[in-house]
């Protein structure tokens, strides 16, 4: 509690209402941070799905040919994480089985029910896109595989071995149609996650119409970074060549989305401090007090300004391909952490201030807890396990020479 008081004292120096903030009066129901690390993971995981889907959409819908090497992989990556998108939410609930009640009797005043439906639609759309994209490969694999794998391939190819030009044309049409639906669905999926926070009127850091936009762009940043990093790491480990043109296109896309994401993040802080609406003193106190290091130092300086400089260098100067790939992997790694810290600052940071508008509470993550650090590591490991299994059924990479 002493450190909280010290940090609030520091905060109050910068905004000049020391007496009010020093009282550190926290309502009893605000002392405990109720939405803890699982709720940080929830937007993080859906964000990874979103960004990875954007890469696939750029190839399949907008015909960005240079993304061919990662287009299929990013679909599988999105699916692996989408399978786990609701896991942190269910772990957070005391009675997870009751989520079905919410879905059976959806209420317009409940934002979470809406998420359930959007999630189901995106899962269906993504599943069908993958099946159709992979169909020629699956038909081929069906003839060479044995046992249960053969049965599985028969099921997911709808027991059809028709790969005639006509059938593939039909597939291509359906894929384009599904991806065209998939983009708004993916955008709504993650924009909606932002909306769930932005729709909490009682919390002044969340309650802003910018929230869905910020979440959406940072989602694209994290997803594209994840695909870049995974592509480079997996290819390096398997001792396979890395397509430099593909990395350049992904880094350029990443740069675009990151500039937008960072601008909107800063715009939100700027509008809070300029408009000085309602609880602005609490928001300023929060960012300069309890969140001073995790927001200004880690999220903004290390996680945003540094990558922005590196991305700038990568865009302006002509670098050797190995250096470019190395920097791309490094920047992607930093941005992945940045987005996680951003989710932390929004979700947990937003709950550190009391509705009394006179005090801040603290959050200390536990190791062994239902929503503790070990649980977070396990939840984040599951999508990779799923991705590994998916890789055994759907080959990650397209053949080189086409």
């Amino acid at each position, binding site marked *: *509690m002493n450190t909280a008081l010290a940090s609030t004292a520091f905060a109050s120096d910068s905004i000049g209402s020391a007496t009010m903030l020093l009282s550190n*009066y*926290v*309502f*009893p129901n*605000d*002392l405990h941070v109720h939405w803890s690390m699982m709720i940080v993971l929830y937007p993080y995981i859906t964000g990874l799905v979103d960004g990875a889907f954007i890469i696939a959409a750029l190839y399949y819908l907008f015909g960005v040919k240079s993304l061919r090497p990662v287009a299929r992989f990013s679909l599988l990556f999105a699916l692996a994480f989408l399978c786990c998108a609701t896991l942190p939410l269910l772990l957070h609930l005391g009675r997870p089985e009751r989520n079905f009640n919410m879905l*059976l*009797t959806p*209420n317009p*005043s409940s934002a979470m029910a809406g998420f359930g439906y959007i999630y189901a639609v995106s899962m*269906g759309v993504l599943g069908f896109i993958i099946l159709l994209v992979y169909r020629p490969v699956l038909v081929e694999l069906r003839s060479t595989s044995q046992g249960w794998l053969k049965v599985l391939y028969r099921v997911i190819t*709808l*027991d*059809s071995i*028709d790969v005639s030009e006509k*059938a593939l044309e*039909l597939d291509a049409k*359906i894929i384009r149609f599904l991806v065209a639906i998939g983009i708004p669905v993916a955008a709504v999926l993650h924009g909606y996650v932002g909306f769930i926070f932005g729709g909490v009127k009682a919390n002044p850091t969340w309650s802003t119409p910018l929230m869905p936009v910020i979440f959406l762009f940072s989602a694209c940043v994290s997803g594209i970074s994840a695909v870049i990093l995974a592509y480079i790491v997996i290819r390096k480990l398997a001792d396979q060549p890395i397509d430099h043109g593909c990395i350049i296109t992904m880094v350029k896309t990443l740069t675009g989305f990151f500039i937008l994401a960072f601008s909107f993040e800063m715009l939100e802080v700027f509008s809070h401090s300029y408009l000085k609406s309602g609880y602005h003193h609490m928001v300023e106190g929060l960012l300069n007090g309890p969140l001073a290091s995790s927001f200004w130092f880690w999220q903004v300086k290390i996680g945003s300004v540094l990558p922005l400089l590196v991305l700038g260098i990568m865009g302006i100067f002509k670098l050797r391909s190995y250096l470019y790939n190395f920097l791309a992997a490094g920047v992607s790694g930093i941005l992945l952490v940045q987005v996680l810290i951003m989710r932390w600052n929004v979700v947990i940071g937003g709950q550190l201030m009391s509705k009394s508008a006179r005090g801040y509470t603290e959050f200390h993550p536990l190791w062994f807890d239902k929503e503790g650090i070990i649980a977070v590591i396990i939840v984040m490991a599951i999508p990779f396990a799923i991705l590994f299994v998916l890789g055994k059924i759907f080959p990650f990479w397209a053949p080189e020479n086409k």
Partner: protein
Amino acid sequence: MGFSYKMRLILVCLGIFVMAWVGFLFKSLLLPDSFGLYGHFRADAITEAVEVPVRHGTNSSCFKCHPFEAKIHKAGLHSTISCEFCHGPYADHVAVDKKTGTLPVKTGKQITTLCLRCHNTQIMARSEEVIKTVAMPDHLRNQQVKLTHDCNQCHHVHAPLKYINRAKQITGLMEKG
């Protein structure tokens, strides 16, 4: 299974529609009958809530039979505290205006524990202006009494400052103004 590929896709689409239809069927089977009668909730829940026996009374129901305690309680700083908060639910004591049981009487250290439920400085989220809080045993040490003292040895539990103010009056230490 001699369907063409196109036909298979159409069958998959049909399958999705059938599944959606089955979903709605399940929904209607799983929903309680009275759901949605008055609003977005189970209407029977109201009847069930009405049938739950009332456990708590009000202070005035207690004061009807305990006029002596009522007089002290109403005059003291604890006047806004519910009797049941310390003594337990009304229903354990009275049913249909007849005494049915005796509420447990707190004694000794139980009283200190009970007082500290609200008056403990350890409860951070509470303004000093609203409730006077103390840290034990510092409070006993500061007041220069034995550390074994229970709260009710100095404070009347219904009107905490009753004896203290009286003692100050008697010894002429009543603060001026």
